[in-house]
């Protein structure tokens, strides 16, 4: 019986297949097996959100998903947020609002922020803070992150009109 499981999945719109042991998390598969190192490991237990990816339309902490569990699923990582060389409004807003310093938490925050705006295009500050509660930042103090999300929401709404 083979030690590794063969998994076929869709990542950032492309078919991707890989081999992994059942004990390897999706985060480990993304980073070490597939080479998508944008998602980061902060805590490995679901508390910090640095590993956040979208799985079948919902944000999850990929450290608590097993690679074998994503057979046939649809995944979006930080690498799939920008479209070619065009930054997503959320990414642009993080830059313009200085919502990052060391940047380690940033991929997780951006994936989570985009997911919020996809679901709720006009969130209140309270809604933003609670939606992002599962993402931790040691550098910024969160204020500029919240402003960046509100800025992105405004820009996206203006663009949609």
């Amino acid at each position, binding site marked *: 019986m083979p030690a590794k499981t063969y998994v076929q999945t869709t990542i950032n719109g492309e078919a991707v297949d890989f081999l992994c042991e059942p004990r390897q998390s999706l985060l480990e598969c993304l980073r070490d097996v597939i080479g998508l190192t*944008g998602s980061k490991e902060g805590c490995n237990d679901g508390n910090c959100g640095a590993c956040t990816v979208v799985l079948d339309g919902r944000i999850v902490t990929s450290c608590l998903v097993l690679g074998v569990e994503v057979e046939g699923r649809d995944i979006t990582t930080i690498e799939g947020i920008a479209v070619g060389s065009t930054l997503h409004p959320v990414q642009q807003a993080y830059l313009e609002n200085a919502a990052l310093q060391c940047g380690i938490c940033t991929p997780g925050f951006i994936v989570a922020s985009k997911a919020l705006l996809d679901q709720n295009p006009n969130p209140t500050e309270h809604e933003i803070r609670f939606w992002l509660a599962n993402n931790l930042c040691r550098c910024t103090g969160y204020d500029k992150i919240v402003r960046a999300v509100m800025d992105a929401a405004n820009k996206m709404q203006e663009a949609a009109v």
Partner: protein
Amino acid sequence: MTTADYEPNVVLSTKDYDVIGSRPIRPNGANKVTGRSLYGVDYQAAGLLHGKVLSSPHGHARIRSIDTSRAEALEGVRAVITSKDLPVVGDGVVDLGESTGDVKYLQDNVLARKKALYKGHAIAAVAATRAPTSSRRRYPSSTSITRHLCRS
């Protein structure tokens, strides 16, 4: 100076600056918001080893002996070091840049010599490869490697 002497809005310069007063985008920002930035842990290379430090679970603990032989025998472990592998640098006050320190005390903080000074003090360090490609056996995690070191 009293409040009567205070002059608000003293203009220091009327020059316009290119950068001061502007809100530049940080130069590495685009790489960071796209996940393209490579942090230390993101680097991959053939033959890359991974390191882990064994921290003391005890403070003020005299180290009687450390037996590294079982850890060294584990598959994938390339090296195990303790303070005996580091030279004794002697003592003397050195300039650390923004402060000074006595080398005698600083060296003991690298890897514990005779005593684990505090909980978390580094005792030993291990360099090992990651999981092998096709073994079904229990591959020792870095945590279990350091646990082997603990049993001394």
